[in-house]
């Protein structure tokens, strides 16, 4: 196997978000999270349930279930789900914005709308994939809290916040989590070839930095074969990272 590309490292890092989740719905928005969920399910997380992107559930041998949107919303409320979605803005506590930029009353840029982010983050684990790690995304304060972060969850208190968990934030540069004393975003690992300083400089708020920041693990030969030969033989992944 030739060495892993950056995007292949990202796919494996995203897949790691679902490690240990067991038999739950692994939902994903976008190509990289989708490839990652498929990789996880074919390797270390075989019990994951995957959607076909429409109303079907797909197992190794094809269709294994039916999950139209109304049932997806039901599964979210039931908590049997870990979703990886995108983020136009993220702050240090993991508040996410996909609604709009600027004032909500009259935005400078209308984006998607909050979609299911409020419900996802209050009901089940959520992770984020950010293809371009910049200060435009990683901001001191998000303009609209769509997915809620740890400060909002703490303000809510129990029992309302008991299902809240932001597991991982994976970017083109690094993996981040919230395993810090104040639940502020922590640099968990940097991808091969990326320096800690580079990540710090691309982040618009102070990151929690452990004494030693490890390197994101490289894909195994088996993982690379799966990605290259089976999951994405057309190489669509190569167009997904920010430049």
């Amino acid at each position: 196997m030739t060495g892993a590309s950056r995007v292949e490292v990202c796919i494996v890092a995203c897949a790691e978000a679902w490690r240990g989740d067991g038999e739950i719905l692994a939902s994903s928005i976008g190509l990289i999270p989708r490839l990652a969920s498929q990789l996880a399910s074919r390797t270390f997380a075989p019990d994951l349930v995957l959607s076909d992107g429409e109303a079907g559930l797909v197992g190794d041998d094809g269709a294994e279930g039916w999950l139209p949107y109304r049932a997806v919303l039901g599964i979210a409320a039931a908590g049997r789900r870990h979703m990886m979605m995108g983020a136009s803005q993220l702050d240090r506590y993991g508040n996410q914005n996909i609604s709009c930029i600027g004032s909500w009353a009259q935005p400078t840029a209308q984006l998607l709308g909050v979609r299911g982010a409020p419900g996802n983050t209050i009901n089940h684990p959520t992770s984020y994939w950010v293809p371009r790690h910049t200060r435009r995304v990683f901001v001191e304060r998000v303009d609209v809290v769509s997915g809620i972060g740890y400060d909002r969850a703490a303000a809510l208190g129990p029992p309302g916040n008991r299902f809240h968990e932001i597991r991982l934030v994976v970017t083109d540069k690094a993996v981040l989590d919230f395993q810090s004393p104040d639940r502020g975003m922590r640099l968990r690992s940097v991808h091969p070839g990326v320096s800690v300083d580079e990540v710090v400089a691309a982040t618009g708020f102070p990151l929690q930095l452990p004494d030693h920041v490890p390197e994101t693990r490289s894909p195994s030969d088996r993982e690379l074969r799966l990605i290259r030969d089976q999951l994405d033989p057309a190489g669509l992944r190569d167009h997904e990272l920010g430049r």
Partner: protein
Amino acid sequence: MADKVMSIAEVVGELRSGMTIGIGGWGSRRKPMALVRAIARSALTDLTVVSYGGPDVGLLVAAGRVRRVVTGFVSLDSIPLEPHFRRARQLGAVELTELDEGMLHWGLLAAARRLPYLPIRAGLGSDVLRVNPELRTVRSPYSDGEELVAVPALTLDVALVHLNRADRQGNGQYLGPDPYFDDLFCLAATRSFISCERLVDPAELRSGGPAQSLLISRMMVSGVLETPHGAHFTSCVPDYDRDEAFQREYAESAASPQAWDRFRARYLDADEAHYQRAVS
């Protein structure tokens, strides 16, 4: 049993300015676009549109028919951001009630069940409560005492949905993979009008798919109409997929008022038959 077949003009004639209209489908999928186009051509104003939003919202907003949109998103799916809605929001030209997708579901469910609200966890801690200051929370009256969002019933004056097949009495059948929320829209509304690809007799409806594909019952329906290719350019599988090339053309018409005028003149200003000829 009553024959409920109507024309597009008759359905639009039942609508009034200021009404709250729910539109079925999801994003750019199985939207009752023939009816949406007819409303865009009408003189109706100040509509409130409740929708899992796609080009239905964008087109009606661009045509100036809408005062308020109630939604969790407006997207063309393959084009993530709906450009007409985007433009209107950025100009401050349309009011918005922005809800989580689950809250929208719960609001329709509450209306369909004739409940004033339904409690939900979604929304807690998020800015959905900030941007909708009229939303209230409730505390569980049981020993857990949990505080939840009270999603108010999204009661509709009219629901418009598009099905693959229907009969003249208003029984409607979906043949694609997802019913979306179309039955809830119908039950949440005082009156519901369903368009379909093809009107068939009840025997063909029964043989066309499994019993559970008969999503809409005539007891939910005030009127039914045949609008072949009527969901175009949204998808209406298995009858047809989304027309991606045309959707791009639609999206590009948001580039300027002049581009919109050209699009409107070419496709929308005449009638549905003209539209179907123009896109075929």
